[in-house]
């Protein structure tokens, strides 16, 4: 359907296919060979035969699927693999630990970059995003509308730290709703830098060894299993725990919702959070546009989120752009 994927990719019912490497990119169902941009469950489903990914992504994938019998092909950032006239490289995506963009190069300097999920705001617990040049950019557009403008790193961290200090000062436990992979460790590192100890819920704490191995040791953090949050500590739980006893039994608490969606006031009602902090692991709209500019892409394929809107906005600016068809459906589920 879309015209810009060739020659590096093919849109197939099973997902995006890389013919030169006989592999699918982040396929939504088990595949014989999968190239994984990162280890979030919606990009890295269980049961692939073989995975190609960064060492950190592979380690997290194994941690989450302990009995997985498949094989792996670790690829360091920048390491090149060439096959059937095509070259593959992984570049840091700045999304979460191990996250990568997939760069595919071919004859005559032609190249395609698949971003997976990415963010350009510098982070404390993963490498910064790179912007390798490519003629074609397949970009995520979770926040592909101009209303999505997030504060910078310093402003965001300051808001989070100030909010937690205020809660602690009022004798309340700060409860941070943050995804188990990436958001939780990043928030814990921000608070640790401000001297605020954190208690991590199981799903996030489970990944502490992988973070330590990658050089992010998570100081001042401990597992929830070792005891509930004491005065002075902040509790980090995944958003789906917001209404469970882990949170509910804390009588004096202040709940923070850490997400790009937090710029919507409706998020307050949807999450029952007291404080909304647009602390996202995705690029905001200006960063999506900047990424297009810095990669020098002249053709853009938008996927996930507001793909059709983002493609339309780029087209109005004279950049050839189209939306990946099924992305509308996935956006609807995520939004």
């Amino acid at each position: 359907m879309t015209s810009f994927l060739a020659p590096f990719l093919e849109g197939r019912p099973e997902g995006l296919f890389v013919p030169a490497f006989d592999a699918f990119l982040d396929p939504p169902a088990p595949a014989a060979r999968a190239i994984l941009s990162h280890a979030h469950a919606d990009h890295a489903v269980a049961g692939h035969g073989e995975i190609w990914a960064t060492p950190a992504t592979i380690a997290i994938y194994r941690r989450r699927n302990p009995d997985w019998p498949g094989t792996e092909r670790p690829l360091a950032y920048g390491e090149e693999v060439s096959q059937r006239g095509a070259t593959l490289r992984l570049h840091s995506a700045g999304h979460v630990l191990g996250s990568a963009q997939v760069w595919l190069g071919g004859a005559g300097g032609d190249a395609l970059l698949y971003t997976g999920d990415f963010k350009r705001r510098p982070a404390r617990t993963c490498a910064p995003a790179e912007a390798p040049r490519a003629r074609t950019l397949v970009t995520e557009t979770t926040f592909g509308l101009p209303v999505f403008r997030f504060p910078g790193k310093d402003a965001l961290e300051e808001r989070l730290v100030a909010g937690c200090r205020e809660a602690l000062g009022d004798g309340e436990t700060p409860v941070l709703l943050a995804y188990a992979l990436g958001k939780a460790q990043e928030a814990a590192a921000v608070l640790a830098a401000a001297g605020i100890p954190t208690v991590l819920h199981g799903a996030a704490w489970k990944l502490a060894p992988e973070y330590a191995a990658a050089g992010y040791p998570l100081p001042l953090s401990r597992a929830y299993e070792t005891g509930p949050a004491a005065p002075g500590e902040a509790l980090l739980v995944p958003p789906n725990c917001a209404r469970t006893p882990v949170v509910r039994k804390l009588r004096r608490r202040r709940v923070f919702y850490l997400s790009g969606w937090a710029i919507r006031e409706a998020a307050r009602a949807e999450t029952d959070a007291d404080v909304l902090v647009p602390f996202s692991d995705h690029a905001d709209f200006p960063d999506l546009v900047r990424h297009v500019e810095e990669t020098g892409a002249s053709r853009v394929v938008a996927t996930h989120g507001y793909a059709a809107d983002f493609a339309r906005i780029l087209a109005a600016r004279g950049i050839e752009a189209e939306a990946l068809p099924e992305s509308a459906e996935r956006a609807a589920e995520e939004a």
Partner: protein
Amino acid sequence: MTAYRLLAGALEEVASARGKLRKIESLAAALRMLEGDELVVGARLLSGSPFAEWEEAVTSAGWATVARAAAAVTGWDLETIGACARAIGDLGEAVGLLLPAEPPGTALGIADVDALFRRLATLRKAAEKQALLEQLLRRASPVEGKYLLKTLSGGLRVGADVTTMEDAIAEAFGAEREAVARARRDSGDVGETARAAREGRLDAIRFRLFHPIGFMLASPIEEAAEVAGELPLLAVEDKFDGIRAHAHKSESRVTLFSRTLDEVTEQFPEVAAALAQVPGDFLLDGEIVAWRAAERRPDSFFRLQKRLGRKAPGADVLAEIPAAFIAYDCLASGGAPLFEEAWSARRERLDAIAAAATGGLLLSDVFRAATPEELERAFDAARARGNEGLVLKRVDSPYQAGKRGKLWRKWKKAAATLDVVVTAVEQGHGKRAGMLSDYTFAVRDGDRFVNIGKAYSGLTDEEIRELGARFRKITTERYGPVRAVAPEVVIEVAFDTIQKSARHKSGFALRFPRIVRLRPDKTIADIASIDDVRELHRRVSGEPGAAGSDTGTKTTA
């Protein structure tokens, strides 16, 4: 000059503050920084309207007008503005997010905002409104733009009601809460009340006839048992299905105000003429109903509806659908306000006025019920008389103008429920902004589905969220904020009554529909058919039975 930024910032604080006390503190802190005219305007803007309650001015601008103004100011095309509004769940909030952090124009003062809103209220053409809105938005920061547009759309939704504002005024200037509440009620203006509180002259604010006063509202109950303990203290009246109105009368002058505090005197000349004949100066609370003179009972709201929206009815309409005023409360008599008096004392004054009127004033009947069973019977009798249900009033209740409390209760039972299928959804407002919470639903007509109504609530946020994801998946088409969805989600709706209506394809409309529960156990094969609806309509619109001779109203002789 004080900047509007102060108010917008305070509103942002109020929105994120937890608990009434913090909200009151934030409002009070902003009020303390203002004085004179700025305090008057600032207090009004903080409570969500650029105008005093008694002013009849309204600023309105349609969604498209606001979107076009936003497009002109932000440089984004209309399609993007629309997509942003849907993503955020609120147009004003979305436009705010699109405005630059540092607006290029001179900062908006509180007085500028007041002047611009007042001019906006005088404009009728969309293009003129748009031009003025552009002027406003060009000078607005994101947070200012957000609250300016929320004010324009008629709801700040920051979790502060009129009582919160009264408390904030009291807190800001060290005044008594009761004195503030009384002054606001009598002046119909939080702005003048705030200034009077600051200047220590709340007592100087006096009640005046012909100056609209807020209505005291009743909280709903679902069953008689809820008020079992209070029954000895409750006066019971039929709930009439008409238009709530305040009638102000002095000498031969009569003015009728509707619940929105709009003057409706011209729409009901026969009502005004009848009241002009009643001796005395007074302010009465009551209901304007379509009146069946021969049977001496109210007609259905549907009949009255035909007279709404017309400025002055012609002779034919007056003859076809005569209206009458049924009085049930007396808020002032002989120039003296009676708001603080108990309901029982006010009712005595009302009876006295009616007695002097020798038949010229219709009054509601007052019943008492000793047990929930008796209350049930009173309810059935009210319904048999063609009325909506019951209103229960504490005999010791003062008249809390502009407030909904538990001193008054209303009881309306669903006539029946229908299983229907959802055909379209749109985003809700307020707490449910951004959630797909408003459902249009249909019944079966052969192999088609015909819409019969739209409902807004009844489900939990959790259920709405879960359904929202499903509706997004089964969306077949989008028209602006509305998504047409494949007919597969079955819900059970309750309603007060069922009427013929041209508004929906089915030819019927449900009055006050609300969602009772989801029916995942049912499929579209199980939903109601148009024949079921016809049968139900025949039943609920049938003539009242034997009890109909008693009308629920009485005329004093």
